[in-house]
């Protein structure tokens, strides 16, 4: 055990001291806030030069010189063909043609421009005209705006999950508020995080094993440590690096978001006072409060705990395969033909995520969250929706047994692979190595 520790320590320190590790660990959590800041900055400084849109409106739906987004509508009596020439020469941006309309059957509305206009502009103009037609219809049908408003009903259903754990000593079953949007987002986030780590750190293991083989340092080391111990030390060492990275990310993200919400929270409150009415401020406060409450419905401790189990399980399962591949091949090019079949279940997990998130209790979802090659990602996707404990227990047991099997399998390939170079590696040969009794 102490020897596995020595291998682990070297592997860990070598990787953690690397500049690339330090940079990616610090910069990755910053990428999203930086991206947001840049987008906001670009949007706010965007040149809003007014563009002219010629208005050929036979119904007087839109008034002359109406400003809309960063456009201005100017009434025109020119012929459409002349206006088209103006557009083509770039003198005006576009033209809106509204023929005489039957308000109950409006069609033949046209917008002309040189380039394809943005979706915002088109849908904006559409709703502008739709509102105008609505007003006309209300007049025409002699309706009353007030009673129309009364007809409108908005409901928002609150979802509760029923759980006997929540009943505090009484016979009653407890309920807590749940939120499927949050569950969806959280499930996707957790699953994706595991996917990313398994992939990136799996290939680190492959690279590391391969480096030892090609630099021929491996035989020097296995004269004082068993090959399986060396493999375990490497897998654990790389795993510890992954853990460190995710730990730092959690700390960075938490502190950045706390800091920014403190800073921007006060700032936005001051600015919104000018623009927004008191009611709107209260509304936005409600929304923020709602989001906090929604996250409050998720058992954070349990989620983190289960996440760590599947994180480790998935990492060891795939890490073992990557280690075996790294030991067998002589260079990275040869490795790709073996990494592809290993990567397929990981990629497939990501594709199945939609199925699981939309129907977390379907048979396919249950199977995929039990099957060891997909369970690390897909059980995490299911978890936020609430999973029966016995599903979790079975899934984790299957995963643990599979990890043990995978490490044993990889160890048998590894012991032969690291000392063999120059032979063409086929699945048949790998099988021969696996069943070889004495090596």
């Amino acid at each position: 055990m102490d020897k596995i520790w020595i291998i682990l320590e070297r592997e860990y320190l070598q990787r953690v001291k690397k500049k690339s590790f330090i940079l990616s660990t610090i910069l990755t959590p910053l990428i999203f806030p930086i991206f947001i800041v840049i987008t906001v900055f670009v949007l706010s400084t965007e040149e809003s030069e007014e563009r002219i849109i010629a208005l050929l409106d036979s119904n007087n739906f839109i008034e002359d010189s109406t400003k809309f987004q960063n456009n201005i509508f100017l009434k025109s009596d020119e012929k459409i063909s002349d206006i088209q020439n103006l557009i083509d020469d770039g003198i005006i941006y576009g033209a809106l043609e509204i023929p005489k309309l039957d308000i109950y059957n409006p069609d033949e509305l046209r917008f002309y421009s040189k380039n394809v206009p943005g979706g915002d502009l088109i849908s904006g103009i559409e709703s502008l005209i739709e509102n105008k037609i609505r007003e006309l219809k209300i007049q025409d049908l002699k309706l009353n705006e007030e009673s129309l408003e009364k007809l409108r009903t908005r409901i928002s259903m609150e979802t509760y999950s029923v759980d006997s754990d929540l009943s505090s000593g009484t016979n009653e079953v407890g309920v807590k508020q749940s939120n499927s949007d949050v569950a969806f987002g959280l499930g996707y986030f957790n699953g994706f995080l595991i996917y990313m780590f398994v992939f990136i750190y799996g290939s680190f293991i492959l690279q590391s094993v391969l480096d030892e083989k090609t630099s021929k340092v491996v035989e020097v080391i296995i004269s004082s440590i068993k090959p399986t111990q060396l493999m375990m030390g490497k897998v654990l060492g790389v795993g510890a690096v992954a853990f460190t990275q995710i730990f730092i990310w959690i700390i960075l993200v938490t502190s950045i978001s706390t800091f920014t919400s403190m800073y921007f929270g006060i700032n936005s409150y001051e600015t919104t006072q000018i623009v927004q009415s008191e009611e709107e401020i209260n509304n936005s406060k409600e929304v923020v409060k709602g989001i906090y409450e929604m996250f409050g419905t998720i058992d954070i401790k349990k989620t983190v705990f289960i996440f760590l189990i599947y994180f480790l399980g998935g990492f060891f399962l795939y890490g073992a395969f990557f280690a075996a591949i790294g030991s067998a091949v002589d260079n990275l090019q040869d490795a790709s033909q073996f990494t592809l079949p290993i990567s397929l279940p990981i990629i497939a997990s990501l594709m199945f995520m939609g199925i699981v998130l939309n129907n977390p209790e379907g048979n396919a979802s249950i199977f995929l969250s039990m099957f060891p090659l997909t369970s690390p990602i897909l059980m995490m996707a299911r978890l936020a929706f609430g999973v029966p404990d016995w599903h979790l227990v079975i899934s984790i047991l299957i995963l643990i047994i599979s990890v043990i099997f995978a490490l044993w399998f990889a160890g048998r390939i590894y012991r032969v692979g690291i000392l063999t170079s120059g032979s063409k590696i086929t699945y048949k040969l790998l099988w021969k190595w696996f069943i070889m009794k004495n090596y």
Partner: protein
Amino acid sequence: MLSVRNISKSYVDHKALDDVSLDIRKGSIFGLLGPNGAGKTSMIRIINQIINQDEGEIFIDQKKITYDDVRKIGYMPEERGLYKKMKVGDFLLFMGKLKGLSRDKCIDSSADWFENLEVSNWWKKNIEDLSKGMSQKVQFISTVIHNPDLIILDEPFSGFDPVNANLVKKNLLRLKEEGKTIIFSTHRLESVDELCDHLAMINNSKKILDGNTDEIKMNAKSDTYILKHDKKIESNDQLFDVISQNKLSRNVYESELSLKKGKSYRNMFSEISKDIEIISFEQKVPNMNDIFIMKVEEGKNG
């Protein structure tokens, strides 16, 4: 010290060792000789339990070898390398710790070896900045850093220039004086005469020769003599045959004579010197290469 009994080993497609036994005495240098692919590396890997034998057993001090014994061996494989991205000191610490050494012992021992191998202190140097000879020295230090009683070196001199090879030879002899047992393998048969006390030759997975170096040489001595003389020598039906004769200068010939079975070289000498002046006279001693070829031929004929 080390006793290898009837080891056989087969790989997927060929037999590497066929019933090979070796005895290595404490405090001696043992040479394992043979051409490339003969099975030397397989034998050494089996002793170090890097691979397992199909048949046979290995004893160390009359007891079956255990994994703890193996850990104490100072083993330098033929396929050797260093972590390029590490510092020399970190690597030596890593290797020392794997051998069960404390940090302080590693540092002390490395400092001693830096001195023995006549290098300045490379502790802080990056391994990727070392020359080939320098990294070979670091490799050697990492092999003996834990002061092992048994040192096994697979092709230790490949990669060393002659000066460094001599330095290593000198250190191996010094280690022998200290009572260490050293086993090394080489395919360069001619280079080992002066170094090893005992040797074994392996060819095509079988041991073809085994014994004390001096005895092997004495036994292999042929009845062939090289003479320098002033006039031509003719073959003598009773005593000797002339194998070859070259004229070196106007009055000097060099001849290779083969003495007939059961005849004394004194008779041949007096017979020739009757009318020919002998300038020099020496018995031809074969080198290891000749002995190896002789043994291989014998094996074919037998």
